[in-house]
């Protein structure tokens, strides 16, 4: 991973990196979060993966993140808890929840709490893109209003 990043640095250069939209991915499953990070990077986002909600909250990416993609079921803090924590601390980030285990109740709860999308794994690239578009759109209008 380090080598891959190093290789891509000259091409996507420092100044490009700063302009890219920052997306953070929180998933306890290593291969799932690496895959998603890979996909978002291939879509020209700047993507960073975190193994838990706690480590995301501690990171310096918290403030620059434009869109958060979080797994619902994680040991410790769940994706939904992470979202409500951000909302409660007035640092709300447009959030897409993903899960390998569809649950109608949690879906309703999540959408009520203001989560942009609730996607069931495996989801297609177009589904994810539609969600990230509306998430980033939300944020832009949100910024304009404030």
């Amino acid at each position: 991973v380090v080598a891959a990043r190093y290789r891509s640095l000259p091409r996507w250069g420092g100044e490009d990196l700063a302009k890219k939209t920052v997306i953070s991915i929180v998933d306890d499953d290593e291969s799932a979060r690496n895959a998603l990070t890979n996909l978002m990077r291939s879509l020209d986002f700047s993507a960073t993966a975190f193994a838990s909600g706690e480590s995301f909250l501690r990171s310096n990416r918290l403030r620059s993140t434009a869109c958060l993609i979080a797994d619902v079921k994680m040991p410790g803090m769940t994706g939904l808890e992470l979202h409500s924590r951000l909302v409660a601390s007035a640092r709300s980030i447009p959030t897409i929840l993903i899960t390998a285990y569809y649950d109608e109740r949690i879906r309703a709860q999540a959408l009520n709490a203001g989560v942009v999308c609730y996607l069931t794994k495996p989801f297609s690239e177009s589904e994810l893109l539609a969600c990230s578009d509306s998430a980033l759109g939300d944020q832009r209008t949100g910024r304009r209003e404030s």
Partner: protein
Amino acid sequence: LVGWILTPGRFSLAFYVGRLFLVITATVMLIVLLTETMTLYERLAVSIFAQRRERESRMMTMEALAASIAHELNQPLAAVVANGSAALRWLDRPVPDLLEARASLQQIVRDGHRAAEVLGSVRSLFQIANRERSPIFINVIIGEVLELAGAELRSERVLVLTDLATDLPRMVASKGQLQEVILNLVRNAVDAMRPITDRARVLKVSSTFVSGQGVLIAIADSGTGIDPKNVEGLFDAFFTTKPHGTAWACDLPLDGRGPRRTAIGSAERAPRRCLLVHAAGRGRVVAASGRVAF
């Protein structure tokens, strides 16, 4: 007809007594038959209800199992789909990024293997071979399980202490099932200790010979302990207090005769060939232990 009615003896005492007996026997017969039929019906109804209940509980078990398998399989499948899309994106760039595409494809191969492993472990769970009993050394099994869980234990910074008796006889048991049980208990212990940050995470595995009864395998951790109100359900299929995931049954039958439940109590009083649990005060012991008769 008139002649017949007026026949002497037609309304004699003997005639009435005879009639009375006929009526009484008929009534008794009727009552006996009715009671018999009622009892049969009742028995039938009870057995039908029991059957229906059993089918429902089996369905629930199957549902939980299916959900668990789906969850485990969707994880690598999602990774395959995402990596596949990513690989296409890397290739579709104005300047195709072959290195990234290659890395994505390698990841797909790895996830594919992982999906196969999930299916393999599901299959082995149902395999008959898994239930074959053979003479084994419990300590060897414990060693294998700890090695298997080694990566997880290290990454969670769990200190493992073993206290294995050296005088254990060989036990006749199903190796696969025993491994499954011990591994589940170790994993549960690790999960129980995950929230602990203010003291050391210690996993203690011990085996002792209980004279005349068998070998006691105890898995204790420095976690928060079992809530007394949860002790009841501990050996129910798929019982879990974890907010995520479905627990694999920790009541795998050690004797192949179906799950058993047992009263919670001291090791000495527990019946043979069943799992038993010790629950102690907070932070001291949470142990569920397996016992095998020999």
